[in-house]
């Protein structure tokens, strides 16, 4: 094995993704390509009302349509799943609607047929009758509305901190999280200045290129689920729970994902196909259209009221935050967003006193979950816009104002956790430098004005979560990695293989990475929240080290030097008398963590902090409102980059995605109905919409507890984009927008007076 003192070059190497060639030659394994013998196709019949009692569902005509195998409603599901409610935080979502529907597009029935087109045609023949109930769509109205989406809250039993919500009635507040640090009221009373603003974000979509898809295949007394999922381990345990089975009777297999971004977490179609397969005793495939994704999962709309007390020197002394998260009809992971992101609502600033109130709300909209940033982009949008507005009112340079208040390592965050390995100031300084902040700036001429802005944000990592990996070394010395982190394009297979390669002294390209398969790949909480590099990376490193220790011990007992690089084959041959045997290294990682107390405080609230920021230069055509981004700089602290090239594409990819949410994307609702549920009308940025100059900077940093100094990076460049653009627009033409998206029309109305 490799010399322990010899640092190889595998970590830090910008090798291309291991599967790149397979992908570009069309050979990569995607769930969409899978055809199972005898499989039937499912098509979903969806609710047309936002909130209503189901009076009847007439399926007779669809059932007798030639080619239809079966029509299934929520009542039929009860035959195989008596308690058909699922969800990661609340068991509130029925596999198919039961008694009630809660949003337009909710699955109500399913047609199964050998031909997917027949299934689609037969769906049109189903007729459901509803008694409509009052509906609520807006998060602020949901706080007090008479329209109540769920009769009773049903928190999942697995979370002790949700127990108090059990059975709560007549409320749309799924979860309220509160943090109290110091004496905010006193600080406000004695403040030199008080600033208060409100900001809103819109509901948007993940739009992965590969729509959501799952297949279920009965196999003896077991079930195999093939699914494009970011969380195979969760799917296995949740489906097993629903069926009342042991986990080893459910096998979940995942190929490459054509994008995820949080859309493919927890249970999406898996419980439905599992139930359908058990009902019809055949393999069932359900593949959503791009349009149907709009009725499946989305990003929270939000309203954020923020208020700061500032002293005469421009130091923030206290902050109050009230955040309302529009979770839609089912909680999904929203309560966790409310809480795990909620506690960072005061921003990356050194503030002694804070009150945070964060509310997860049910409304009659399509459900919202995690989308690249887990709520953080909504928070940064508000607190950084607020920061710029304060700087303006104080007449201070916005970068200088941030410098004065920035949260430095060694200082406590409002939770009480002392900051460590969090290069917030380095991210800010990198942006200032790359934006040439202190140099004169061309402000444009005539009706076309130019402006610039920077913004920074940070994120804690959801905790505590566990990752397990195994590294096996075959008797010829070749190495296989088993882990359930899902590579959805972010390059995790490559990064994990680099870690193994570094530890075992082999080339990354020679390592075989096994696709997630719960029969063989060990437990992982999920691929979300930029947790994998850190958690799974640590588990993989431990597994590789465990394998290496065993190999060293074998070598030692043969009297060979423990640094028998390239002689693993010989070690096996001499140990077993022939080329035989396997060494299995196991690594499990769970970070230390202290859950917040009743005041939301903890001295160890996150295993690591992600830091990201963005600077932009824009040009506003003041006659039309049309705005062009001329330049974008993204900077992040991601610890030590395992693969700098992949990291840079994560930064630009995240920033471009957030740019869409900043300037154009919005799910438009009319009476609960999404009116632009297709890519013809819901536009994500194309190549001509992105800035001509994008710089991505990895700040010099190291995370002591991370694998080879690394931590997560998939979301960091989303944080600063929206507020940086808002500030740049104001810098250019004097108007401030407080609601996303900042479309040309919104800028136009801000400049020229309100819409008639």
């Amino acid at each position, binding site marked *: 094995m490799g010399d322990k003192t010899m640092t190889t070059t595998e970590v830090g190497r910008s090798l291309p993704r291991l599967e790149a060639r397979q992908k570009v030659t069309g050979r990569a394994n995607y769930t969409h390509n899978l055809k199972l013998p005898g499989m039937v196709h499912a098509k979903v019949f969806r609710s047309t009302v936002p909130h209503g009692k189901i009076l009847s569902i007439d399926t007779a005509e669809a059932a007798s349509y030639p080619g239809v195998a079966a029509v299934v409603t929520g009542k039929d599901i009860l035959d195989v799943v008596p308690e058909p409610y699922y969800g990661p935080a609340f068991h509130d979502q029925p596999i198919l609607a039961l008694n009630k529907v809660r949003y337009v597009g909710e699955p109500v029935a399913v047609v199964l047929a050998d031909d997917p087109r027949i299934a689609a045609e037969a769906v049109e023949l189903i007729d459901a009758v509803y008694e409509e109930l009052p509906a609520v769509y807006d998060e602020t109205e949901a706080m007090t509305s008479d329209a109540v989406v769920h009769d009773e809250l049903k928190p999942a039993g697995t979370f002790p901190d949700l127990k108090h919500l059990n059975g709560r009635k007549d409320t749309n507040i799924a979860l309220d999280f509160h943090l109290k640090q110091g004496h905010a009221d006193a600080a406000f009373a004695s403040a030199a200045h008080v600033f208060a603003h409100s900001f809103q974000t819109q509901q948007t979509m993940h739009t992965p290129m590969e729509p959501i898809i799952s297949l279920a295949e009965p196999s003896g007394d077991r079930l195999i689920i093939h699914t494009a999922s970011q969380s195979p381990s969760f799917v296995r345990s949740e489906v097993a729970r629903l069926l009342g089975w042991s986990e080893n009777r459910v096998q979940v297999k995942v190929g490459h994902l054509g994008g995820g971004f949080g859309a493919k977490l927890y249970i999406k179609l898996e419980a439905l196909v599992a139930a359908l397969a058990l009902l019809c005793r055949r393999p069932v495939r359900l593949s959503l259209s791009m*349009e149907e994704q709009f009725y499946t999962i989305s990003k929270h709309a939000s309203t954020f009221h923020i208020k700061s007390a500032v002293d005469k020197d421009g130091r923030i002394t206290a902050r109050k935050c009230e955040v309302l998260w529009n979770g839609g009809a089912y909680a999904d992971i929203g309560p966790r967003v409310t809480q795990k992101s909620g506690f960072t609502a005061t921003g990356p600033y050194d503030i002694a006193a804070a009150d945070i109130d964060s509310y997860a709300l049910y409304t009659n909209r399509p459900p919202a979950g995690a989308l690249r940033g887990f709520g953080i982009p909504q928070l940064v949008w508000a607190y950084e816009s607020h920061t710029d507005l304060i700087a303006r009112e104080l007449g201070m340079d916005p970068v200088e104002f941030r410098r004065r208040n920035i949260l430095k390592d060694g200082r406590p965050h409002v939770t009480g956790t002392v900051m460590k390995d969090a290069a917030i100031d380095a991210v800010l300084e990198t942006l200032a430098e790359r934006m040439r902040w202190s140099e004169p700036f061309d402000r444009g001429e005539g009706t076309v004005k130019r402006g610039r802005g920077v913004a920074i944000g940070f994120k804690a990592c959801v905790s505590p979560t566990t990752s397990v990996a195994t590294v096996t070394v075959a008797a010829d010395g070749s190495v296989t990695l088993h882990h359930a982190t899902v590579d959805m394009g972010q390059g995790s297979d490559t990064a994990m293989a680099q870690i193994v390669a570094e530890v075992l002294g082999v080339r990354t390209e020679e390592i075989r990475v096994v696709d997630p398969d719960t029969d063989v790949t060990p437990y992982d909480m999920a691929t979300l929240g930029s947790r994998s590099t850190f958690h799974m990376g640590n588990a993989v490193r431990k597994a590789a080290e465990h394998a290496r220790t065993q190999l060293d011990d074998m070598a030692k007992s043969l009297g060979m030097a423990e640094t028998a690089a390239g002689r693993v084959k010989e070690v096996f041959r001499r140990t077993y008398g022939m080329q035989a045997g396997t060494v299995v290294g196991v690594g499990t990682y769970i970070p230390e963590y202290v859950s917040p107390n009743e005041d939301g405080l903890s001295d160890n609230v996150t295993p690591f902090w992600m830091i990201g920021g963005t600077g932009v230069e824009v040009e506003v055509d003041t*006659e039309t*409102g049309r705005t062009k981004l001329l330049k974008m700089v993204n900077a992040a602290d991601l610890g030590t980059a395992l693969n700098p090239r992949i990291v840079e594409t994560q930064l630009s990819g995240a920033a471009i995605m957030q740019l869409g949410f900043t300037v154009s994307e919005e799910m438009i609702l009319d009476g609960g109905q999404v009116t632009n549920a297709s890519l*013809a009308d819901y536009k*994500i940025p194309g190549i001509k919409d992105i800035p001509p100059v994008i710089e991505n900077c990895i700040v010099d940093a190291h995370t002591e507890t991370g694998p080879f100094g690394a931590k997560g990076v998939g979301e960091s460049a989303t944080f600063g984009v929206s507020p940086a653009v808002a500030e740049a627009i104001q810098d250019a033409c004097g108007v401030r927008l407080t609601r996303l998206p900042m479309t*040309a029309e919104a800028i*136009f109305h801000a400049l*020229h007076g309100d819409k*008639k």
Partner: protein
Amino acid sequence: MSFELISPNTLRDALDLLDVDDPSIRPFSGGTALRLMMKSGVFSPSKLVVLRGIPDLSGIEISDDGSLTIGALSTLAEVETSALVARQVPVLAGALKHLSNRRVRNVARIGGAIAHGDPHMDLPPLLSALNAEVIVESRNGRRHIAVEDLVIGYYETLLEPDELIVALRIPAQDDWHSAYRKVTARSADDWPALGVATSISHEGKEIRDIRLVVGAATERPTRLDISEGVLRSEGVAGLPRAVEAAMESVEVMDDSHGSATWKKALLGVELRRSVEEILGRNA
């Protein structure tokens, strides 16, 4: 719900398949618009007559009088990259570069782009400003229709269900100079929120004649007669009045691309800029 797909090999066969009394039988050229309509359920055909196999409906030719004839089945990409088009009507080649993306332009055909009748299209207003006409054929014979007259309402054209556009004719532009200004609201390669097509026959800053057509923001491509009149009589000095007249006289729609208020303002700005662009360019 299911439909028949028929691929005739001759124009005659294609025309025989169409039926003046049955709009559920539709010609299918690139299919980019039809398939979106079928997917969203707004149109369910009984029969689709695929035009692609008809040999004599493509090609771009120039006549002695300098006019161009473009076969209805030419793809938008073929028109975009044609040397003849670049020489005779550069504004058309330029506009096509900003029409959606390469994948759509490789598939959509010029006939489909004119016949579709969706107001959010680039070519009908531009071709109207260029004074182009389409050659239309049915079993009963041929007729010529000015592009300007073709679209009569929201998704409504003068074409009968049994008629096919067989070619587009763009007259020689001689001393006419044109500009097409497109505004998109949601992404750069989106359908237009507004299109302003301007053709001016001028000598220096002196306007001899002018054609102004607005599209996308209106229910159908609309000629700006009053503004044209102002510019014809007052010349470029009348531009502010012409702009005002356009904003006052045109009925602009609210839609998913934006409010009428905004688009009306855009119309004024883009109209002014297009006239300035042409006169500035050829000064």
